[in-house]
Structures are given as C-alpha cells and as structure tokens.
C-alpha cells in the first residue's frame, strides 16, 4: 500500500476516476456553472495522466510538464470565457439552468 | 457550541461550560475581566463621553478595554450609553441576544438607568431604564457621567467578575482656587 506512489497505474486510475467524476457531474449538474466545475475536473484528470506519463515514460521530462502548464493556461482561458458566457446567458435569461435554456427554444 | 435557548427570563448567571473546575474558572474570570471588549454602541450624548474615555486623555486601553468591536459577536460588554426608546428597544434586545456568552451590560448615564431627564408622567416614547428588559450589571449615573465614571464602572464590573478590586478608589476632590 505504501508504495502506491511509485506505480504508473495508480495515477492513471486516479486520472480516470477524476475524469469519471467530471463526466458524472457534467451530466448531473443542472446549471452551467456546475457543469463548468465538472469540466475542470475532467481537465485535471487529463493533466494527471499527462504528468504520470511524463514522469514514468517520457524521455524528456519537461514535455509533460509543459503540456500540463498549457492545459492550465487553456483551462484558465476557458474558465474565463465560459464564465462570461454564463453570465451573459444569465443576464439575458435570468437563469443558468440548462433546462430553462432548453425550454427557451420551444 | 450549541445555542440551546434558555428560557427568556434572563438571570445574571453565565451558563456553565462543558468542562469546569474551580481554579480554571477563576483564571478564566480573571482573563475576562481584563479583556472587556465593548460593543460600538452609542445612543446619545453619553456615547460621546464613551468615545472620550477611549481617547487620549482617559484611555480605556490601559485596562485592555479599548477594542470597540462593531459586531456584537465579538464583544463582551454592551455599554448602553444613552436613551433607549421604544423604537430602539427591539434592536437592543436583538443585539444583546447576538452577543455570545459571557456577556455583560453596563448602563451608562441616567437615561440608560431610568430614562433620565426624559421621563415624565405620561411620556410616550422613552424606555424607563435598560434594566426593565436587560440584565444590567453595572450602573453609572450622571448626565452624562464623566469618563472617569465609565472607567470606574469598568473597574466595578471587573470587581463583580473577579470578586476583588485591584485598583485604588478615588475620593473626589475639589480644586481650590486661589
């Protein structure tokens, strides 16, 4: 048990579980911000995978780190844009719940 | 940490703690007595004297009591400085409720003691004394009391809390003009 940290699989499983939680939240969450939170989980699941591969497999250990850094940057940008969109949606429809937004179409 | 509400008849006894033994209680009381944080709660003229007593000349901070906290949650003693009227009374009650134990009340000024100069038969708006609805611990008479009296009141409260007085008593003297 105590040597778990030295196995690639541990990280991969954690990444997978985070990813799963992300998907779970994405489906379950009724509101846009909730979904955004789940997306962040998905992204971090992916980052964990990258880092794990980087650590255990990659020949150049900077690659994975840089990719993770890029993921962070992208995640931040995505969060900024997404939140602004959410706000714009909220402004216009006074709701950020997906159901309400779906109803709007009909 | 719960707040089991006790019956609304207010005694002047502080509810007990989970763990308590005598020596510790004494120590706690000593600490409390020396760190009485009043609530920023000025009502009328007396509040100015309260302010004065926090200022340079009189300096409540010498007794560790200058930390006027704006939030009732952080204060130990409510100095009712001024007239309470019927419109204010509910607010005072709420503020008192919102203070955490142990808490004390000082009625500063004649208004807080009995309605002061504003009581007359048939008056319609002044509450005749804070002690009609609050468990007042110390009364400081005067209209307004001098800041010294407020300090004296705090010392009196400390005496009430710890059971003995650490400071000398001052006998008023009059200046002789010559």
């Amino acid at each position: 048990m105590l040597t778990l940290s030295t196995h690639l699989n541990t990280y991969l499983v954690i990444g997978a579980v985070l990813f799963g939680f992300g998907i779970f939240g994405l489906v379950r969450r009724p509101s846009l911000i909730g979904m955004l939170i789940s997306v962040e989980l998905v992204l971090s699941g992916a980052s964990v995978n990258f880092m794990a591969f980087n650590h255990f497999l990659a020949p150049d250990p900077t690659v994975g780190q840089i990719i993770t850094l890029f993921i962070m940057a992208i995640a931040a940008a995505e969060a900024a844009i997404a939140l602004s969109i959410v706000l714009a949606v909220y402004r216009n429809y006074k709701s950020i719940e997906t159901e309400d937004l779906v109803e709007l179409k009909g | 940490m719960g707040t089991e509400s006790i019956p609304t008849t207010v005694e002047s006894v502080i509810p007990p703690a989970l763990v308590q033994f005598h020596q510790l209680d004494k120590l706690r009381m000593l600490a409390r007595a020396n760190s009485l944080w009043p609530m920023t709660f000025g009502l009328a003229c007396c509040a100015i004297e309260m302010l004065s007593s926090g200022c340079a000349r009189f300096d409540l901070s010498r007794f560790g009591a200058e930390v006027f906290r704006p939030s009732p949650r952080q204060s130990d003693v409510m100095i009712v400085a001024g007239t309470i009227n019927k419109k204010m009374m509910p607010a005072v009650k709420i503020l008192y409720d919102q203070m955490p134990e142990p808490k004390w009340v000082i009625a500063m000024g004649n208004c807080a003691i009995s309605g002061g100069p504003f009581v007359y038969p048939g008056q319609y708006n002044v509450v005749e004394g804070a002690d009609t609805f609050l468990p007042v611990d110390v009364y400081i008479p005067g209209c307004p009391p001098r800041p010294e009296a407020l300090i004296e009141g705090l010392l009196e409260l400390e005496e009430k809390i710890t059971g003995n007085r650490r400071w000398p008593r001052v006998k008023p003297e009059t200046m002789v003009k010559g």
Partner: protein
Amino acid sequence: MNPSLFSPEGLAGVIFLILICVTMIGAIIATCTTRLIRSVSGLAVCFVGVAGLYYFLNSPFVAMMELLIYVGAVCVTIAFAIMLAEPDEAKQARKITGLSGGLAAICGGFFAYALAYAAVNGKWMTPAVKRVNDGSLKEIGLSLLTRYSMVFELVSIVLLIAIVGALVLAQSGRDKA
C-alpha cells in the same frame, strides 16, 4: 519492497494515501453537493490533492502552480461568477431527480471504468532512451524559450483574446443596468 511505516518513505506513502483521499473527497464534494459554493470548495480541495500528486510525480513547480492557478485564481473566479449568477441554490435542489443522477452515475462510472481498465491493462513501454534532462524548473524555462517558444507566445495571445472576450461579454450588460 515495503518500507516500514515510520521511515520517510513509509510516511510519504501515508501522505500519498491521504492525498488520494483528499482528491477523491474533493471530487465527490465538487460533484455531489447542491450548493455551488460548496462545489467550488470541493473543487479547491480536489486541486490541492492533485497538486500533491504532481509533487509525487517529481514536479513541485507544477504542483505549486496548480495551487496558485487553480485554487487561487480559477476557483476564486468561479466563486465570483456564482455570486453573480446563482447565489441561492434553492432552485437547484428540485432539479436533481433520481433519474438524471442515476444516468450521470452510469455515464461517469462507465467512463471511469473504461479508462481505468485501459490504463491498467495497457502495455506502457518503459522509456527506451535515457532521460535527456532532469525536468527541473530551469529546464522548463529553457524549453519554453527554445523549443516551445512559439507556443509560449501563442499562449499569451490566447490569454489576451480570452480576457478581452471575457471582458466584452461580461461588460455587455453593465451599462444597461
């Protein structure tokens, strides 16, 4: 090789376990609570765990950045957005029906299982070549300046566009109010 519990390695193992727990608990809080602000807190907790994992993966810099960016910035921004858009969650509760919850659980479980299965059973090659550098901060910086310099600049443009876009979007309603 099973280190004793009280050797540094053993303690590190314990910490690792704790970190996994933290990550998982964070993820659970982030997805399962009804209050959005709690979700954000959960997300923050989860990120703290993930940062710890990164640390174990030998890149303290990324771990710290995870804290700085995700906990310190992204979570804060999301919290502000929540403050603006959905401060009271009373409405939320009724929306989560058993059905969508079940569906979500199935979806998530499926993905997680599939990925984990693939991961565990995948035949990952051990690195054939010797590692070229130690992956330290300096190395990252150097590669950013050389190999990835284009990306480095592009990132700034992406950020600029994102920020300008976000500002435009967020401001669009400001004057109307």
